[in-house]
């Protein structure tokens, strides 16, 4: 099966599991919902009874943003940041669980169990292993950091006397792209490692991680092509969302709600893409 076929297969598998997509969306919604409550209280308290906010529903007023940012000497905003950070960490723990559920569901095709049972059982079953995998992956992050620093200093050394801003600008862009490449590479290796663990129900987490690295190194073209091909699908859905979102003015309560629902559909599409990634990559490695 070639890369395009694998990607298509992944998308089909994902599309066939709307319940799972809804569940992924629901987790995201619940965690982020906390921030809604916190923000509502903070923003309402800081500027909510001010007439300044009157036209906020029509257009964003910079003055309101400034007042909010400086409210209570910036205390309101820093409180919000701390809560946001806490929620992000919580969500990372949650997502380790979600991976277990996704993979268990994909692997156990046509089993007699109902979806929810399968999903939650998988999440619980693999949680310990996937969590250990995250810890082992720190080694990969460290290695990637080292490679980046090395490349960076080689570039800086070769262009140390360049007074040409154009070159400096291009080099900065290249560095950013390279850093992103490394980040996505590790994320991809982690996907394969999880698929290997879940697909074989293996308890050897470190060995699976190394095997995933080996697999990616052996087939760099195929794995990268598949990863970025699905990435394009993600970008396409983001663009569609942005176009739709800016197509109508969100000023009345009804349009505000429609805009919010649209955002939820986009978030759901992220879950859908996540499942597609697992299914397609599982297919390429021959385990799903």
């Amino acid at each position: 099966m070639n890369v395009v076929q694998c990607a298509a297969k992944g998308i089909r598998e994902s599309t066939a599991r709307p319940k799972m997509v809804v569940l992924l969306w629901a987790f995201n919604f619940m965690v982020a919902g906390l921030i809604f409550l916190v923000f509502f209280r903070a923003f309402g308290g800081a500027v909510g009874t001010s007439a300044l906010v009157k036209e906020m529903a029509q257009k964003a007023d910079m003055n309101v943003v400034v007042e909010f940012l400086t409210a209570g000497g910036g205390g309101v905003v820093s409180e919000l940041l701390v809560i946001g950070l806490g929620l992000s960490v919580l969500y990372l723990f949650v997502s380790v669980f979600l991976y277990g559920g996704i993979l268990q569901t994909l692997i156990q095709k046509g089993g007699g169990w109902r979806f929810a049972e399968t999903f939650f059982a998988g999440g619980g079953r693999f949680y310990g292993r996937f969590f250990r995998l995250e810890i082992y992956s720190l080694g990969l992050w460290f290695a990637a950091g080292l490679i980046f620093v090395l490349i960076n200093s080689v570039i800086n050394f070769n262009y140390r006397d360049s007074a040409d801003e154009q070159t400096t600008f291009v080099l900065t862009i290249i560095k950013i792209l390279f850093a992103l490449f490394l980040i996505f590479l590790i994320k991809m290796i982690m996907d394969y490692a999880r698929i290997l663990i879940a697909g074989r129900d293996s308890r050897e987490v470190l060995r699976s991680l190394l095997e995933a690295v080996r697999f990616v190194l052996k087939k760099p073209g195929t794995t990268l092509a598949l990863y970025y091909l699905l990435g394009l699908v993600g970008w396409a859905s983001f663009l569609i969302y942005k176009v739709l979102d800016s197509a109508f003015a969100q000023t009345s309560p009804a349009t505000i709600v429609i805009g919010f629902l649209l955002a939820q559909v986009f978030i759901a599409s992220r879950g859908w893409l996540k499942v597609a990634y697992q299914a397609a990559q599982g297919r390429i490695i021959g385990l799903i």
Partner: protein
Amino acid sequence: MRRSVPVFAAIFLFMASALFAALSRPIASYNLKARLNPDEKKVAGSEVLTWLNDSDLPVSELLFHLYLNAFKNSRTTFMKESRGSSRGFKAGQDNWGFITVERIRIQDGDDLTPSLAFLQPDDGNADDQTVMKVDLPAPLPPGEKIVVEIEFTSKLPKVFARSGFSGDFFMVGQWFPKIGVFQSGAWNCHQYHASSEFFADYGTYHVEITAPEKFVVGATGKRTGETKNADGTKTYIHDQEDVHDFAWTACPDFVEFRETYVLDEPSVKTEMILLVHRSHVKQKDRYAQALRNGLEFYSQSYGPYPYETITLVDPAPGAMGAGGMEYPTLFTAGTSVWMPRGVRFPEMVTIHEFGHGYWYGMVGSNEFEEAWLDEGINTYSEIKAMSKYYGEDRSMIDFAGLKIGSVAYNRMSVIGSGRFDPILKKSWEYISGGSYALNVYAKAGLMLLTLEKWLGEEVMSRLMKTYFEQWKFRHPISQDFIRVAEEVSGKDLGWFFSQVLHSPDRLDYAVSGLKAEEIAAGEGLFDVRTIEPPPKEPDAGSRPEGVLKAYRNEITVARYGEWIFPQEILIVFDDGEKVRESWDGKDRWTRFVYQKTAKVVSAEIDPEHKMVLDANYANNSRVLELKRPAVVKAALGFMAWVQGFLSLISF
């Protein structure tokens, strides 16, 4: 009729002399020769200074600024004070800057070199050599001139603060021994500080600059000559009257653009010279348009631009430390290769630095001691110009859906800041460089905008024109500005300036409470009828039940800041009635009570937003009920953003 001819001739002569006379009284005039050695980053210079003792006291010593010595070592006053900004400075043999005076003597007279000594009038730092003194063999009587000849060498520093080199780019400012200002019987000649600029007397400059041929050279004033030399160099001659400084720049990578700018009302004709680094050539039109806007705005708002040239210098990449600096008839702007159209940094810097041609260039206030007079007045002018040409709500940033106007941009820096210093203070006495900048730029600019809204635009416009007209080519102090403001407005403004110039406090008025309570029909026992202020129309006690409801409306306004300003309050009731109240603003709070059949809907203090300096706009108004849809919208938007973020980090 013949008899009348001499009269006409006299009138004509008088008019002609008025027309061609210098605009300023020349006190310090310079004849300079400079030869650039780009490899050694040095300028070999000679100077003939003609100085007039304009005071009524004899002068027995001369004081000079040797600004470049601020970069001589790590213990100069500038370096000690600027620990923060000097981090961008990499020490190294080539990177230090200094100026050596090889010889100083009176023309056809005594050699003064043996008496040369360094003074540290501000802080006594013995490692600081930015002020030089020489003794005269005999005191110079009042009204007399002295001509002094100086041989000097300037080593330029690696650029990080205004002047210096970066690769092949040279910004040569503060580069020659510059005499101080003899004022009120003493020398005003401060050391070069991290947070301070300059002060000098007006005069005439004749400067010959020699540089290798491949360099494109720009300088203060009009080019009056250009000759090729046998050694592969070129000499450029520049002349300018009525200025108090001279700067020049040289770089082989400049692309030169020239354009004649003409304005009909008032009449202005000047040559715009743009020296744009080749890596920024695409942004030449942005610079040019901003400069045209600046010329138009300042000429129309304050007075016609009088010089024959204006030179814009775009510093080389990596030399941003030289950017955003003003010199007479020449200024440096700044940009980078990637600068979206909606990010109007190059426009803002161009208008601001051009504007200094007025507030610093022509109105020569003392930047060491009262920096707000140039930076604050110029920030005020810049805000007005930016708002006029680029839109009030988006003049600074209009990019990717984000819109920030100049006023909001400056307010942001003021309201979020600590309150350590007042606007008026010696530049080096602020707690930090940040506090200096915040006060003399943003706070002073907004202070004048507040004054404008208070006095009205027409009065303020007359005030600024009068101040410019009265003080151009002179050295005003804060008191002079206040005097003009009071004369033109016909108001006592002492209460205003004494607060904003001298106190580090803040202005913050608020509507602190809003209540509408239904007045219940009387229940219980009433012995006296004086509970609360006795109800007026309609009488709460006697109203027919269930026909008309009556409300007791309470609006409380408060002063949270220390500054006191008279205030107006706009109160709106649910039957559409609007009431305006005024308050002297002196007490910490006051309350307005209305007994009405209508309910109060909202109240706003300072409804016209005259108090631009108010530290918190949000508390200036209050509505009876929480604006739920707006808050929900903001919260939903924020939540969607967080959702996207979560899905991104967990992928």
